[in-house]
């Protein structure tokens, strides 16, 4: 039985190398996000954003861009028959969950590294908020990675899978969204970042991450057996 660590790094490496080589998801996600920023500029008729409006536009855009990526997470496995290979391999199934979630996390962080500075350039006055923003987004990404992997792995084996993932994932992402925008909104205030309830919201994000990582860890075995 291959040790989980080895299986994990092998699977993660495969996914990241594939993405690097084919660049299927990341450019599309980033492009989608930036274009959405432009649409918001016109939709809201604003050239500068702050506070709750800024937090909302940023998070909603990132969330929807993330869903694009999540939809594609297991597509390669499904189309190339990778599922069978993974099922037959003598590895602990949780390595698959961990690897896929980690890959998704990497995509999301990469997405934000590209799009958040652009968001700041488009709409914000200063970059002072970016470091704490990055922390909050990192925790949010972790939660999104856990739930996204969970839902995507089930939806990929269904009809209308592109519809199913956002349908089920969005309500699930509501507490995550509440906590993320709650943490981000004071950071983007007009006068500069404030940290009102920042610690509390980060704790909520951490709790969300913990719960859904545990759920994913506990149930993923049942998703792969066939």
């Amino acid at each position, binding site marked *: 039985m291959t040790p989980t660590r080895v299986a994990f790094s092998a699977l993660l490496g495969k996914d990241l190398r594939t993405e690097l080589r084919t660049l299927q998801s990341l450019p599309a996600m980033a492009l989608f996000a930036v274009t959405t920023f432009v649409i918001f500029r016109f939709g809201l008729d604003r050239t500068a954003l702050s506070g709750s409006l800024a937090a909302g536009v940023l998070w909603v855009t990132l969330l929807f861009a993330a869903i694009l990526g999540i939809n594609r997470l297991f597509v390669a496995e499904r189309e190339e028959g990778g599922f069978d290979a993974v099922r037959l391999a003598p590895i602990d199934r949780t390595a698959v969950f961990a690897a896929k979630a980690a890959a998704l996390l990497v995509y999301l962080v990469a997405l934000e590294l590209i799009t958040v500075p652009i968001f700041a350039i488009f709409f914000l006055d200063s970059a002072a908020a970016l470091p704490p923003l990055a922390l909050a987004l990192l925790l949010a990404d972790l939660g999104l990675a856990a739930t996204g992997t969970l839902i995507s792995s089930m939806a990929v084996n269904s009809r209308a899978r592109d519809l199913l993932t956002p349908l089920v994932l969005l*309500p699930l992402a509501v507490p995550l969204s509440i906590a993320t925008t709650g943490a981000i909104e004071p950071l983007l205030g007009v006068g500069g970042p404030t940290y009102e309830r920042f610690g509390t919201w980060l704790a909520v994000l951490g709790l969300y991450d913990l719960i859904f990582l545990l759920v994913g860890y506990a*149930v993923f075995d049942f998703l792969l057996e066939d």
Partner: protein
Amino acid sequence: MYGNGLKPLSIATVATLALSLSLVFFYAPLDADQGFIQKIFYLHVPLAITALIGFVIGGVFAILHLRSGDSRWDAYSYVSIHMSVIFGVAVLITGAIWAKASWGHWWVWDEPTLVSFLIVFLMYATYYPFRYAIEDRDRQARYASVFAITAGAFVPLNFMAVRMAESLVHPRTFATAEGGLPAEMMLTFLVSLVAMGLLWTTLVKFELTAKSASGQLKRLRRALDAPSSGGASRVAPEVS
């Protein structure tokens, strides 16, 4: 046999519902601030609590299903969630009526519990298209159980987050339980809660009995080699 005990259960349900209605309209005192409108709470809140407990029960059945592989647990899980979604519709409608009567709007975002419940309802409403999209019966049942467990974990987290999102600018003053829910109101509330719980259980049993009968009919059909009539339901799990 699912039908066993259905009759005494129904009788108990009707009796408790009747008792609760009598208490609501003849025994419970009129609320000092809300007036007669407050009576909706004896309907709305027990329905909500029952629905939420029902979702949790659905999650527990789902865990049992995954651990045992017995498809009967899956049917119990499905029916529990199904019934709680229906109760959820009642919760949202009675909640809207109460909101309209209290504040003049059919919906208010100020009420964290109602908003949380809406989100939970939307989450569980996706249970149906989710099941329907998975064709393989076995896999459908397994994935549905995973969904029920995930959604179950989501419920308390959601309530907490929504409550925290409450704007600090408009603090709401609530009459706390310690603040003084008179004993008569408490009694009425508890009886109503028990009545709704019994109603939920009776209807779930009712549904399972019907499913079981349909399942037995299918077996009979197959045993007799008789031609089959309607198509099998793709969403609802079968019970035999």
